[in-house]
């Protein structure tokens, strides 16, 4: 009892072939889209890799690029088969490959599912990498003379300006590190000496933030220094001042940016899975309706197409039987040889 049989006459077959061909071309375009999104994601990770200590995982974008290319190739092949399906001569050369094609399609859908899951789950890894990376970025902000880190200040300033954020968790992270290089501190000055001696590590700490934390939307000129001292500035109260500097932390800002990107890509991959399933179902109907033609010479005869030749249970039992046969071929062969001799 085949699964979901549908009767086809010539007109219906032609319509199915044409519709399926269009669908395959849409799938190719979706494959190109996944490929380019993978490249975009990789480029974005590279751009901000300094913020993540150059230790971010490029697994997801690489997988997306690979999967995008595979989707294109797969669906282009499927489209070609569709295009040739209405010409019996051309279709005959594709017939033997169809079974493997469907198996490969099933496997490919599983791979797509894994990629979609990764898109959603790898966000945790990105979050942790960001937290660590930003902590180091803030610590190395002042090292503009250390080779390999001399652009950290510029990168962090540009990131804070672009993403409208300040510090790792919030602006108070800047109070805990020395972000002024020792080259610009007058060590003979009493005030400097007091500050340096006032903490265990001998760091010049202050309650100030860099200029890139400033919010241009503030009605008054930016207050960067002596942030916790309300009396240092006229008409200023730290607790009620919201527009002066960005209150959001850069980890949260960068994470929401990457998370939005990864969620969108994951949704697109799930859409691709559905599209691929529809493609394969359509192709199955088309090929079975062509094979089941009562009179192969007469293209106008009726035929029946189905999804599976037997019901789901029987198909699974058959597949398991085949797998067992593959695993235990020796026993069957020995048994076969003994009676012959």
């Amino acid at each position, binding site marked *: 009892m085949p699964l979901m049989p549908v009767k086809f006459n010539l007109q219906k077959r032609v319509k199915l072939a044409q519709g399926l061909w269009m669908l395959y071309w849409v799938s190719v375009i979706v494959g190109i889209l996944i490929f380019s999104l993978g490249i975009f994601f990789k480029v974005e990770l590279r751009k901000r890799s300094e913020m993540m200590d150059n230790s971010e995982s490029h697994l997801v974008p690489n997988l997306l690029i690979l999967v995008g290319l595979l989707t294109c190739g797969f669906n282009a092949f499927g489209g070609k088969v569709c295009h040739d399906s209405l010409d019996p001569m051309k279709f005959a050369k594709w017939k033997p490959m169809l079974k493997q094609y469907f198996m490969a399609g099933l496997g490919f859908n599983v791979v797509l599912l894994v990629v979609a899951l990764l898109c959603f789950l790898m966000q945790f890894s990105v979050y942790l990498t960001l937290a660590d990376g930003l902590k180091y970025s803030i610590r190395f902000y002042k090292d503009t003379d250390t080779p390999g880190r001399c652009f950290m*200040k510029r990168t962090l300033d540009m990131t804070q300006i672009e993403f409208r954020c300040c510090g790792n968790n919030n602006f108070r992270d800047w109070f805990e590190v020395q972000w002024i290089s020792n080259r610009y501190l007058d060590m003979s*000055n009493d005030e400097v000496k007091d500050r340096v001696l006032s903490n265990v590590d001998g760091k010049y700490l202050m309650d100030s933030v860099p*200029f890139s934390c*400033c919010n241009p939307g503030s009605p008054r000129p*930016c207050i960067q220094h002596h942030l916790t001292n309300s009396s240092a500035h006229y008409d200023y109260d730290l607790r009620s001042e919201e527009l002066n500097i960005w209150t959001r932390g850069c980890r949260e800002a960068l994470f929401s940016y990457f998370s939005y990107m990864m969620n969108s890509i994951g949704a697109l991959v799930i859409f691709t899975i559905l599209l691929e399933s529809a493609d394969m179902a359509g192709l199955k109907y088309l090929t079975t309706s062509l094979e089941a033609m009562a009179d192969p010479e007469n293209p106008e005869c009726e035929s029946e197409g189905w999804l599976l030749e037997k019901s789901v249970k029987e198909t699974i039992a058959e597949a398991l039987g085949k797998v067992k046969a593959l695993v235990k071929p020796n026993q069957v062969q020995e048994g076969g040889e003994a009676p012959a001799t």
Partner: protein
Amino acid sequence: MALLTVKFDLKKRVKLAQTVWFMYWFAVMAGVLVFSMGLFFKIELRKRSELMDNSESHLLPNLLILMGLVLCAINAVGGKICYDSLDPSKFSKWKPLLGAFLGGCVAFNALLLLTALLCFLMRIPLQFTLAEGLRNAVRFYKDTDTPGRCYMKRTVDLMQMEFRCCGSRDFRDWFEIQWVSNRYLDFSAKEVKDRIGSNVDGQYLMDGVPFSCCNPSSPRPCIQFQMTNNTAHYSYDHYTEELNVWRRGCSEALLAYYGGMMNTIGALVILVTLLEVGVTVGLQYVQSSLASLANPEDPESESEGWLLEKSVRETFTDITAKMKAVGKGAKVEEGGEEAAAPPAAS
């Protein structure tokens, strides 16, 4: 003696019509391109109109938008004519309009060239608008509580960060005006009273710049205040310090940005003009080759196509004669009526 004659047989005519039809579709896309460039330019001007005192001229983008739309229409009609040219019955309905259409195309090409020229020339008024607008923008930076100007500070800050510039001419513009609002000045402090008393207008001037002038590439934290006082900062010399704040003025930066955009658009409009001239010439050959068929009933007959029916001079005298005839048409009509009326009466 026709200008630049070319012999055509049926195959050549068909090829010509197909090529010109193809070119017309390119020209339609070029029209869409011109339209979208005009739209983009208009949006960019609007985005920054606050910095130009809302007095910038929108002549060029409006002209580009109009030209783009007319280009699309003209080229669509031209393409249709080409498409119909191989079918005599369809072509006959276009025949009477072709002369006027080609004349219109030539005039339109001249307008396109003028638009391209305008793209390069409009830089000059823009320079003056920018200089004036930015001077006012810097002056109104502090007025964050004045309705209509409360976003000037944010706009100027964002512009200085985006275009990497400071002040109108350079960062010293900030030294000449008060950019801190009076609401945040403690008038009971002696320092404030001294500064205000030290100049005629009673403004709180300082040798400091806003934070948006800071250059992130500087190896040291940004020095915004007391910039001309070397002793106020350790190891600082304001004569040799180049990386601290942006040294370019925003007039220059914005002019370079808009100037580059206008140059690109002007170059593209010139290319579109060349394409238009090409399709007009092609259509003229199509029309003349079909008009000069030796045997109108037989499509396979040979024919001759030309650029101009007579030489340039004769065409020119023809046109001036026609214009004179149109000018004296009224007089001829009046004279004709008078002459006809008396014989009818008598």
